[in-house]
Every structure is written in C-alpha cells, then in structure tokens.
C-alpha cells in the first residue's frame, strides 16, 4: 500500500508542488522568525559582552532601593577617590572611570537635541567603550558622539559641534569619533556626547564616577578582582564581573528581541493558518478527483483503513519534504532579515547565524502537523468512496453542486447576529479599553467563522449578481461566470485563504487611517498653533526668557502669540497639586477650545474658572472651587467643567485673577505662536528660531513637523505590517493557482471540446484569468468589508473618541492587488489548458 502511495505521489508530483510551496512558505516564516530572533539576541549579547566581558570587574553606584524615587535628585555616584584606591589594589592591573552629567548638544538649527538634554559622559582611560569610527576624544577641544546621535543630527567625524555646559554657555568641539553605546535604555534615548574626563567634569560639573571598569592583574581571577574592589567601595557600589555585567545588560536588551520575535511569530501563525486552508483545499480536490482510483483500490481489496492511511501518508510525505525545504528557506530568510534589519535594531552584525534545534524542530512539527491536520477530513472522505464508483463513467463530470443549504444560512446568520451583538456592545460601552479590543477580536473571529460557513453561498450569490454583466462582455467572461459557480465550496475555500489576509490588512489600514485622522484632529485642537515653544522639560519651574517672548510678540511674521503661565496649587476637592494656568492673548472658547461637561469655556473671566473633570470631582458649573493660591486660599465660581483629554488641563483662570493669585509665576512656561497672514512658512520658522536663538534649551515644536513625524511612524508601521501579511497573501495566491490548476486538469476534455467548437487559445486563457480574478475579487472584497467593519469596531472600542477614516486609496490598491493576484494565479493553469492538444485531450480519460 505504501508503495502505491509513493508511486502515486511520484506520478502526481506536479499537483502537489504548489501545496508543498504553501507549506514551505509557512514553515519558512516560522523557522525564519525563530532564527532571526535567536541571532538578533546573540547579536545584542556579543555587542554587550564584547565591551564588558573583557573586564574583570565593573563597579556601579549602589541603588538605594529604600529611598523614595525622586527624579530631581542627582544620580548616586562613586566618590572621586575610589578610582585611585581601586588602581592601587595589587589585584588590579588598570582601572578606568566614567562620569555622567548633562551636556545638551545643539543640532544644526542651534536647538538642543531631543526633549531631554544629551548625556555628557567622561570616558577616562581604560573604560569599556571604544569608538566605532574615528578616535576617543582627547583634550578640551574634542568630543565623541553616540552613533545614534550622529545619525539623528547628521554630524560626522571632523564636524564642529556646539555643546552647552552646566551654566548654559556654548562650547565648540571637534567630533573625534563615533561611539556605539548600544541599546542601553537611557543612553539610547537621551543620546551621548563623550569627552575626556577633565573636559567632562568642566562641562557637566559632575563629580565622582558613574562606573569604574577594572582589568585584573596577571594571575588574578575575576572573582578575586571583584572582591578586592568590593573591599574598597564597601556598600557604595554594586560590583560584579564584567561577564555578569554584560549578561545583565544583554538580558535587558533581549526583552526587545523577544518582543519582536513574538510579534513576528503572530504573523507567521497567520501564514501557517492560510497555508493550512490551502492544503486542505488541495487534498479535498485531489481526493475528489481520484475517486475512481480510490474505488479501484477498494475493488482490489483495500480496507477503508488502508485508503485512509494512504491519503495521510501522502500528506505526511509532502509535509516532511515541504517542511525541510521551508526550514532551509527559513534559515536564509532569518539570515537576510538579520543582515538587513540587525544594524537598524542595534545588534552586532558580525554575529554569525545562530541555528538552534528549536527552530528546526518547531518548523518540522508545524509543517508536518499542518499537512496531516489539513488532510484528515479529505482522507476520511476518501474512505467513504464505495468500490462501485470505479465502474461509473466519471465522477468529475457531475453536475453543479446544488441546494440552498438552509443549515448554512441558519448557522451563518446566527454567527453574524452574535458577532454583530458583541460589536454593538463593545462600541457602545465607554471606558472598557482593552476589554473592548478583546471583544472586537472575538466578534471578528465569530464573524469569520460565519463567513466561512456562508462562503459557498456567498460565492454563488456574488457570481449570480455579476454574471448578467459578464455574459454580455464576451464568451470568455460568460464561460468564466458559469465556471465560477460550478463548485462554490472549492472556490469558497480558495477564496477564504485570501480573505484572511485581506481582512487583516484592511482592518489595519482602517485603524491606521483613523488614527492618523484622529491624531490630526487632536493636534489641531490641542495644539491650536503653528509652533509651540516650551521651557526645558527637565526643570519644572523653568520659564521662557522674557526677551524671547518679547521678540516673538514684536515679529511681523507672527500673528497671534499666546503666553501660557502655569503654577501649581493645592485644591480642596482633589489630592495632589492641581496645575493652574492662564492664557494671555487668547480668547477662550475661540482660540482655544475644549468640550465642556457643563457650562461654557467662553464664560471664564474675572472670578470665574474652568476646571477639568478630574479636578472638579462632583462640582458643576455654578458651584464654587476653592484654590490654594500663592497668596492664600481663594474661591472662584466654576464657569465650565471640561472634558478630560482636551487642550486644557487643571484649572484655567483669567489673566488678571492668575496674576493676583500667583504673583511669582510671571514667566511663560510655554508660548503658542501662529504665523501672520501672508507670511511664508519659512518666514514664520525663521522668526520663531531667531527669537529663541539665545535660549537653545527652550523646546520648539512645529505642528507640521509633529504631524509629519507621527505620519512617518504610522506609515512605517503600516508598511511593516503589510509586508508581514504579504506572505500570507502570497500563500493564498498559491492556493488559488492550485485550485485553478486542478480545475483545469479536471476539465481537460471540456476545454478540448470548447477548442473544437472554435474557442481560440487566447479565449481559453482569458476565461481562466477572469475566473481567477473573479475569485480573488470576491475573496478580497469580503476581506475588505470585514476589515472595514472590524477595523472600525476595534478602533472605536479601544478609543471612543476615534474619528473613523476610510483609506480609500489603500483599499483601491488592495483591489488592484487582488486583480493582479488573479491574473498571476491563472498564468500557469492557463498555459497548460491552452497548450493541450485537442485530440490528445479528447482521447484521455
């Protein structure tokens, strides 16, 4: 029996090529992801280890875990004399110390880089960082930049950069080299400017050491060096071996690569799922086509069990071979992914490919189990073939699948209703956050099952709806319309594979577009200006220099300039500090808007306050709000209680009341600026930057740039997700091509008859193309509809204020892709059908 199965496989290998490809692609994604993840992690590790592992001991200041977390307190340091003491130890060959402080680097516009000042680091001799490019900074005229900073600012080795010292004075340095500080959270986020030790102390005013790296004297073990250093530092420092220190850093960064692996795995599973659908369909069709063969086996005495096993064996062999191919391709994909993505993710790209047992084992298992699972039902069906079927003329020339399938309609309808109910509940209840998202996902899955159940009817109905048009177009499209209705179950399964991808990609496109629109609206509402100029973030009481504000107000290029003054007050109704603000130069309710729960923002005036809901508690408009001001407690009438999440937060007073209440807070914490009518974007920008040129640490945010940055992030995310889902779509196209090829095989004689009746080769090919395109369009169309509905539902349930946006451009691209996919899927089957000789086909059975 096994021999029969294997002989059959050899004979029909062409039929199984696309199936094997579908499995292989799914497996490739899975094993490729695992290999990529492992290699990435190893790449992170070698980088971390490479720098730290060479040192016998690394000492960092001990974190006082009992102390209350106070962001303003200076970070603990190792006392300045520690380094000398460590160097004097007999166990120590050499030791280097690092210092750390703030050293705001200015970008090419003369503004401080980032919203937090860059870290100024003193790299003494013998510390663990080495330059990637150029050399270490030496003397008072040189500085080295972190590679990330260099990339963000565009500075390179040899450029002159300006760095502010602790007093805010400018100093110029020549960039001596670029240092890769790796993926360490704070260093990567804030960026680093490195100096030699003396320059660093001068610039940042930092004292002591933030880290001491130690190499052991000859013959001294790392552990001995660690305990020797501990003897010097006592409880001031955490001392560990370089290896342990590196491993700890690597582990922290490993979390990133793990997240990435999990996310990729999710997409890999989608591909596997789609591949399983494709395989199921292929086996189902093959079994149907080989009814006579099965019956013949039964006639010559095969038991049902043997037939069952023979189909499963076939699946097993295909699964094993395809999985092996998939793993090989996965290794390639993992390598390519690491080669292209590794550097962007900050891993050491010289890392060679890490191939563990796990990716291979998982890949083999996934591929084989998937193939076996998909073949179970077709195999069972094969056992139901009665031996007598061998004597019937042909099983393939049977009539159309008939019957309305009331059971399908009822089950599908119920599933739709349930799904709709959940969506209704999820989108209409407020404040359920992630629960809503989970509910929507569940509803989406239920709805999808409904679509699967109804899909044969759906295919038939859609084709019936469009066939009058198709009949009129020409004989090829007429035949295609009729062919599409022949085996709706088969067509539906092929289509569903595509629907999965289309649903996900459209759903995400809708969420993406809606997020963009929502964010744009929120930005223009909360940020009703072209530029926002704000005091440095790291000093809570900092204000924008009056001279800068005055210059902004005097500029011709600028229209409205709104000064925001802010102070903190204790409030009777709420715990903690309540921010109290006033907006000088703005008409509340017009220039600045915020939806009110009660009252109206426009009514704020002398003695009247607007307060956000969180601080209002149970108070309503007309009630009295007590505010602990700088000059004693005062009471204001509430003009409006404002919704949370809007422009205004805390209490908003009229300028006069604010001045009386907080006479000390007379500086602007931020300024909102709008360009004058007729001023060009460049004029406005120059006016703003000129005004704040003397205050480099003051932040300047442009509405347009923020929008562009936000759009960039969303676009990149969309492209990445689309690329990941692309593979699932390719697998689905394989499935459609396979279904078409098998149909062509089944209709060999019919095609020959059509050719004999005068159908040209081109028409035959066109017929198949149209058939495939119709199939793809239905599949994609269903997916697009589902994607829009559930993209909307997911967005609204997770973010009730979401503004729905339909990404019409992207959706029309998806439709174009579906048409292209159909054409592509029909190329080979079409060639085969058209190339067939008429007489050969007529003679064949």
């Amino acid at each position, binding site marked *: 029996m096994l021999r029969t199965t294997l002989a059959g496989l050899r004979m029909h290998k062409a039929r199984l090529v696309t199936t094997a490809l579908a499995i292989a692609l799914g497996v490739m994604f899975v094993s490729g992801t695992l290999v990529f993840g492992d290699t990435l992690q190893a790449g992170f590790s070698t980088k971390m280890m490479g720098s730290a592992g060479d040192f016998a001991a690394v000492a960092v200041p001990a974190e006082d875990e009992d102390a209350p977390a106070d962001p303003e307190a200076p970070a603990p340091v190792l006392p300045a004399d520690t380094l000398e003491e460590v160097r004097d130890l007999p166990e120590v060959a050499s030791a280097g110390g690092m210092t750390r402080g703030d050293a705001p680097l200015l970008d090419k516009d003369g503004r401080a880089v980032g919203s937090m000042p860059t870290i100024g680091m003193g790299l003494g001799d013998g510390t663990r960082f080495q330059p990637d490019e150029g050399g270490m900074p030496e003397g008072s005229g040189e500085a080295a930049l972190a590679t990330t900073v260099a990339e963000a600012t565009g500075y390179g080795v040899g450029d002159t950069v300006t760095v502010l010292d602790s007093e805010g004075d400018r100093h110029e340095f020549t960039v001596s080299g670029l240092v890769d500080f790796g993926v360490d959270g704070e260093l990567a986020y804030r960026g680093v400017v490195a100096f030699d030790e003396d320059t660093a102390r001068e610039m940042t005013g930092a004292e002591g050491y933030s880290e001491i790296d130690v190499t052991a004297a000859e013959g001294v073990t790392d552990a001995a060096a660690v305990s020797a250093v501990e003897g010097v530092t006592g409880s001031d420092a955490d001392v560990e071996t370089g290896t342990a220190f590196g491993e700890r850093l690597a582990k922290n960064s490993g979390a990133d690569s793990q997240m990435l692996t999990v996310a990729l795995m999710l997409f890999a599973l989608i591909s596997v799922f789609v591949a399983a659908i494709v395989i199921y369909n292929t086996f189902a069709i093959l079994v149907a086509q080989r009814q006579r063969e099965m019956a013949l086996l039964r006639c010559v005495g095969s038991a049902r069990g043997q037939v069952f096993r023979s189909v499963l064996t076939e699946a097993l062999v295909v699964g094993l071979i395809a999985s092996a191919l998939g793993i090989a391709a996965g290794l390639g994909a993992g390598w390519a992914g690491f080669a292209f993505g590794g550097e962007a993710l900050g891993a050491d790209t010289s890392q060679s490919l890490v191939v563990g047992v796990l990716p291979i084992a998982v890949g083999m298992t996934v591929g084989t189990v998937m193939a076996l699972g998909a073949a179970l039902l077709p195999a069972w069906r094969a056992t139901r073939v009665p031996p007598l079927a061998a004597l019937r*003329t042909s099983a393939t020339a049977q*009539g*159309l699948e008939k019957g309305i399938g009331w059971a399908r309609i009822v089950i599908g309808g119920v599933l739709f209703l349930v799904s709709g109910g959940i969506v209704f509940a999820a989108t209409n209840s407020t404040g359920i956050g992630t629960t809503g998202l989970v509910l929507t996902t569940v509803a989406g899955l239920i709805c999808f099952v409904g679509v699967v159940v109804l899909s044969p009817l759906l295919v038939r109905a859609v084709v019936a709806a469009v066939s009058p048009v198709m009949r009129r177009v020409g*004989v090829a499209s007429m035949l295609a319309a*009729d062919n599409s209705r022949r085996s709706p179950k088969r067509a539906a399964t092929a289509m569903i594979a595509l629907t999965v991808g289309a649903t996900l990609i459209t759903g995400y496109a809708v969420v993406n577009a809606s997020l963009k629109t929502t964010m744009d609206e929120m930005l223009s509402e909360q940020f009703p200006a072209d530029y926002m100029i704000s005091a440095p973030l790291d000093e809570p009481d900092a204000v924008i220099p009056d001279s800068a504000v005055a210059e902004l107000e005097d500029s011709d290029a600028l229209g409205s300039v709104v000064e925001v003054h802010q102070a903190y007050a204790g409030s009777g109704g709420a715990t903690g500090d309540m921010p109290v603000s006033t907006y000088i130069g703005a008409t509340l309710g017009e220039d600045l808007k915020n939806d009110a729960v009660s009252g109206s923002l426009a009514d704020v005036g002398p003695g009247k306050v607007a307060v956000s809901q969180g601080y209002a508690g149970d108070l309503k408009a007309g009630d009295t709000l007590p505010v602990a001001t700088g000059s004693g407690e005062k009471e204001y009438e509430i003009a409006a209680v404002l919704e949370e999440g809007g422009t205004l937060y805390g209490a908003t007073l009229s300028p006069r009341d604010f001045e009386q209440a907080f006479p000390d807070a007379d500086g602007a914490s931020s300024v909102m600026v709008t360009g004058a009518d007729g001023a060009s974007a460049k004029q406005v920008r120059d006016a703003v930057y000129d005004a704040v040129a003397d205050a480099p640490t003051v932040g300047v945010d442009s509405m347009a740039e923020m929008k562009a940055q936000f759009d960039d992030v969303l676009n990149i995310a969309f492209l990445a997700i689309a690329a990941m889902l692309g593979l699932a779509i390719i697998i689905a196209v394989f499935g459609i091509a396979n279904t078409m090829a098998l149909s062509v095989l089944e209709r060999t004689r019919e095609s020959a008859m059509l050719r004999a009746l*005068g159908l*040209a080769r081109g028409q035959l090919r066109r017929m198949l193309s149209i058939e495939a395109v119709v199939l793809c369009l239905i599949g994609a169309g269903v997916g697009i509809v589902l994607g829009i509905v559930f993209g909307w539902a997911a967005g609204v349930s997770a973010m009730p204020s979401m503004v729905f946006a339909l990404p019409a451009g992207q959706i029309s691209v998806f439709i174009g892709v579906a048409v292209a996919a159909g054409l592509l899927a029909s190329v080979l089957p079409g060639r085969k059908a058209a190339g067939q000789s008429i*007489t050969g086909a007529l003679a064949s059975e």
Partner: protein
Amino acid sequence: MSQTAAVAAPDHSTQAPPVVIARSLSKVYGAGDSAVRALDGVSVEFARGHFTAIMGPSGSGKSTLMHCLAGLDTASSGTVHLGRTDITRLNDRQLTQLRRDRIGFIFQSFNLLPMLTAEQNILLPAQIAKRKVDRGRFERLIDVVGLRERLDHLPSKLSGGQQQRVAVARALLGAPEVVYADEPTGNLDSRSGAGVLSFLRDSARDMGQTIVMVTHDPVAASYADRVIFLRDGRLVDEVHAPTAETVSDRLLKLES
C-alpha cells in the same frame, strides 16, 4: 483483399460535388524505430449532403482520420481540402476560425458544458463565433430533436439520449459545411441511439447536411449512405447503401 486505397466511386462524385477531399493523407506518430503510421496515404472524398460512416477495427486509424479531416490534428503529409480551403496549410488561429464557422462536432461524451442549460449549450458555438443565430432554424431544430420542453434544463437533468440530441442540435444550428461525429451513440442505449442516428440521417437527406461519422457499431453505420473501411491506416473497402449485415460481414473479413 484486392481493393487498395482508392478514390471514392465516380458515380457518387458526379451526383454531388465533394465538400471534403483528402489526398494521400499520412500521419506518423513518433520517430525512428518507434514510429507508428496511424494513417498511410489515405485519399477520400465526402460528397455534399451525404452521410458517411468511417469504420475499422480498433487502431485502424479511423479517429485519427477524422481528427485530421477536421483540422483538430495535423497530418504528416498529404492535403485536406474543405471546399476550396487547404486546411493543412492553415495556422492555429485560422484553424480555430475554420472550426468556428464551417465545421460542426459531435463527440461520444463530455459533449455539453455542465453549467450551461440545453439552450445555452446549443447557442454556445454561435456565441463563440459572435454569429447571429438564425432563430427560425433554431426553432425548427429543437422541434425536430424534441427538446422544446427541456431547453432550460442543465445537462445533469437530461438523459444520455437527450444530451446527445442537444449536441446534434448544437452541431447543426450553424449549418456548417460538414459535421464530424465521433462515436455519437457509443454511450447510448439502442433506442436513444436509433433516435439520434435517424435524426442525423434525416438532416443529411432533408437539409443537405454533410456528415462524417466514426463508429465501430455496424447498426449505427447502417444509417449512413456509405461506409468506408480502414485497416492499419489504409482505406481498404467501402459499401454503399449499407445494411447492418453487409457492414458486419465486411468488418469480419477485415478482422480475419
């Protein structure tokens, strides 16, 4: 066997001009030692309005002859004329055009498209050729073949005889210069077969339709005006106004 491959009898060619003329038609499959001569210098004519049957034992080349005559297969040497057209010189596109406009086909099985109704199947060639349907001829045809009640049935709802009558109606609707039928009754019981055959004979007599039929059934052949016999790719015999008995006798002689 004294008769060699010969041109059809002169008395027939005088009474009606030939529609299809084959000259020294040969067909060789394969090459070298494994070459098989399926047709070996066959010359034959088919007169307008005649119903001719091609007979011969299995492997005698009767199907190959029909395929070459119909332009479905290309001959290795020799010519086939349909009217004034030498079809052996036509390319694939021209052959497709020829089949569309000037030839009708009836096959043994798989004759109809399962997803089209009887009427749609009958009209299919006209649609493929973008030809206007002669409604009057259509009405007459479906009455003669007795399908009026079943026009909107799918093939799966028709009996084998009915399906074959649909195929006959389809072949005849466009009034082609010649209709080729390949074992049209091979899958039918004798009564349905008789119905189809007498209809073919009547259409030759009444409508002047030229019909060439391949069969191995002497009874089917007896409906024809003339039977030609093939053996080993050569034309070896022919009978005019055949009966089932005469055809059987000749066949037995051929086989021996």
